[in-house]
């Protein structure tokens, strides 16, 4: 009801470029246990922003505060300029949410759920089209209680999108989906973004974050430990590019050790595995050419977000 926010009257409005979700200094504790400890980030209009972190890192609590389902203990949240705690109803018109651990009435059919939730919004999306995109057309007359875990998940994704939201928050988007459904869901999310919808994605699934996200905040122990593009995060991981090959003739150890950016080196029955950076790769190739050595079964595996993630989180 009130438009004043007693918690934060001094915070200056940061003029980031078209930030549609702003979180500043968010704190939340349950019974003395701090779950979110000073999280700040801003999601720009039209981007897919990932929150990645181990279990219990405070990801879900953070987005539940953004959704207005929980009130922060401290900090300032704005969704399209609105405070989700004070202006909850207005925010629900703009923001679609897929929640963790929520269900529907067991005897409600998929069709009825889509119709019900469509009726809650002023200008809803086409529920049948969403059902089709999510592979639920065959299940329209199935009751919620009879759906498989993956089908329930897909229905909740449909319900998150049914209000034609400007921002959609997806908590554990593809948990419980088989690889095919997962890829279809990713395609759908990319289409949604292509229509200008901002996506806030909570995940602990690296491949998903790397494939979808423009930027990722890595959350650990209630704090953001890194915030960057996927490539930027990967670049921070030390020794994450692996080069392995079996040289036709032995190479000089000293020369190898002098390679730029080399993090580690291993020789297993004549097969070398070097960990380093892009510079290391270039230098290895030049070395092989110079020494006229053939590299059998040469493999260069890129660093993945996994490596970066393990580097940037403690657990």
């Amino acid at each position, binding site marked *: 009801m009130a438009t004043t926010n007693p918690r934060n009257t001094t915070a200056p409005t940061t003029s980031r470029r078209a930030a549609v979700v702003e979180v500043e200094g968010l704190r939340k504790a349950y019974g003395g246990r701090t779950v979110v400890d000073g999280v700040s980030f801003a999601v720009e209009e039209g981007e897919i922003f990932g929150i990645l972190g181990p279990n219990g890192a405070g990801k879900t609590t953070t987005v539940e505060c953004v959704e207005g*389902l929980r009130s922060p203990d401290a900090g300032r949240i704005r969704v399209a300029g609105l405070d989700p705690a004070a202006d909850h109803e207005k925010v629900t018109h703009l923001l679609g949410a897929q*929640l963790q651990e929520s269900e*529907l*009435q067991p005897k409600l059919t998929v069709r009825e759920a889509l*119709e*019900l939730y469509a*009726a809650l919004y*002023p*200008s809803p999306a086409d529920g049948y089209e969403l059902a089709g995109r999510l592979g639920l057309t065959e299940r329209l007359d199935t009751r919620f209680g009879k759906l498989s875990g993956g089908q329930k998940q897909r229905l909740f994704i449909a319900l998150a999108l049914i209000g034609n939201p400007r921002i959609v928050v997806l908590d554990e988007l593809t948990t419980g989906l088989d690889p095919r459904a997962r890829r279809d869901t990713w395609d759908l999310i990319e289409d949604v973004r292509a229509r200008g919808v901002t996506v806030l994605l909570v995940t602990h699934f690296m491949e998903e974050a790397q494939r979808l996200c423009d930027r990722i905040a890595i959350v650990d122990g209630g704090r953001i430990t890194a915030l960057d593009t996927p490539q930027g995060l990967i670049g921070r991981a030390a020794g994450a590019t692996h080069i392995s090959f079996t040289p036709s003739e032995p190479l000089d150890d000293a020369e190898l050790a002098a390679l730029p950016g080399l993090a580690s080196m291993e020789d297993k029955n004549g097969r070398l595995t070097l960990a380093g950076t892009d510079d290391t790769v270039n230098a290895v190739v030049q070395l092989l050419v110079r020494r006229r050595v053939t590299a059998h079964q040469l493999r260069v595996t890129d660093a993945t977000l996994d490596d970066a993630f393990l580097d940037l989180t403690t657990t």
Partner: protein
Amino acid sequence: MSATPTPAPAVPSASGGSAPARRPRRAVLRAETRLFLREPGNFFWIAVFPPGLLALLGLIPTFREPDPNLGGVRLIETYVPVTVLVALIVSGVQALPPVITGYRERGILRRMSATPVRPSALLAAQMGLHGAAALVSVLLSLAVGRIAYGVGLPEQVAGYLLALLLAAAAALAMGALVAAFSPTAKIATAVGSVVFLPMMFAAGVWLPVQAMPDALATAVGFVPFGAAAEALGQAAAGDWPDWSSLGILALWAVVLTAAATRWFRWQ
């Protein structure tokens, strides 16, 4: 509020206004009505069992003979208000709490919190439906009494309706309070059953209030359904119910509603 037909707004995204806000609540009510009718067990115990009980009791010959202990009134006549109250108690205290608690336990209320509609719409729909099913049961009981056993319809209609309304409010609020204190649907069913028996006793299922010893009748008169039984009995006989009975009933309805509102958790 106003019945003036207004053209549909060209830009439906504008929030606010009472007319667009009604459509979501209607959709919730429609969905919940379907779900309510998909639970035939609840509907049976609320709407079919109490009038059925009345029909069975009437088959016992002594129930149809004037009882000198009741001042010459037939026992079956005192059982019409009793079965009316049984319907309200089954509906409010037995059927309603596990539904509401289940909605909270399963995160259904939480999911609705993330939409423009408040989850209270779900509770309002469920309470309304349970109240409506009880009303169907009341009409069936009155019909069974009238048609099968020649029990006169309530003569003081306004007084009867007022007592009925207050009793329904007390029953639904009692159910909401049970739901507020029960973490799971199973516990709600168990707590509901514990509350159920004394309420049935007070309503006069085992011994109609009119046949109770004075001290017991006085005590029972302070319990919501004991007061309701007295008020319904008086109104059925054509008298305006005692204000003390109506007052006690109203007080219970208010206190139970306030308590349920105070302690109910949405998640």
